[in-house]
């Protein structure tokens, strides 16, 4: 199973996990990213490159499928304006082996940080806005998988 969805709408984590569990592999790992409400943040705006996003996330998922013996991968990434507490991203993997499920899940979320064409803009209660800067630590984590 391979599922990639780039969407504005929210998603149902329980339903996504159930679909992965139904594959019969014995191991399912997942990560859900949620908007933090730090420092008076009232919204996180996610911009993306529509012509490129789906194909690029497909490539990242194909790379995970090539590296680990996976029965299923599910990636959902939202765009648009999201409030604190809202889900941003979901990565789920299913495998017969826990190591493959856990490692591929970490790999996918690390690569999404540096290889998926999304940009985050923070909106604060006092009207200020700020684009989130890429973190050297994130790029280093993604590069670590490439070595």
């Amino acid at each position: 199973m391979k599922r990639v969805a780039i969407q504005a709408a929210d998603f149902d984590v329980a339903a996504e996990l159930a679909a992965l569990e139904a594959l019969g592999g014995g191991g399912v790992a997942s990560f859900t990213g949620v908007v933090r409400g730090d420092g008076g943040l009232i919204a996180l705006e996610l911009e993306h490159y529509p012509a490129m996003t789906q194909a690029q996330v497909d490539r990242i998922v194909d790379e995970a499928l090539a590296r680990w013996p996976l029965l299923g991968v599910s990636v959902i990434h939202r765009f648009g304006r999201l409030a604190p507490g809202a889900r941003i991203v979901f990565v789920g993997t299913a495998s017969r082996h826990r190591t493959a499920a856990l490692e591929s899940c970490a790999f996918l979320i690390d690569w999404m940080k540096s290889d998926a064409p999304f940009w985050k803009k923070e909106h604060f209660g006092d009207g200020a806005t700020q684009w989130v800067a890429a973190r050297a630590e994130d790029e280093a984590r993604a590069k670590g998988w490439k070595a």
Partner: protein
Amino acid sequence: MADLTIVYFAWVREAIGRDEERVARPAADGSVADLVATLAARGGGYAQALSDPARLRAAIDQRFVPLDSLIGDAREVALFPPVTGG
């Protein structure tokens, strides 16, 4: 030959004040970095967004590329900050 489409994202888009434009195709041996320098020379928001190439990333026809890549017969060049997905 057809024109080249340039698309901008995030603060690059905001500084320039538009998300897309069409320009005359650069010479065949022109790189993305050459295009960035030409656009930055327009001044104003272009200079603000594009005068420091170290802060920029690029894609040619929806594939990430280094800034020294040749544009060749590509249809679309995208200019943007480092991505912050996930």
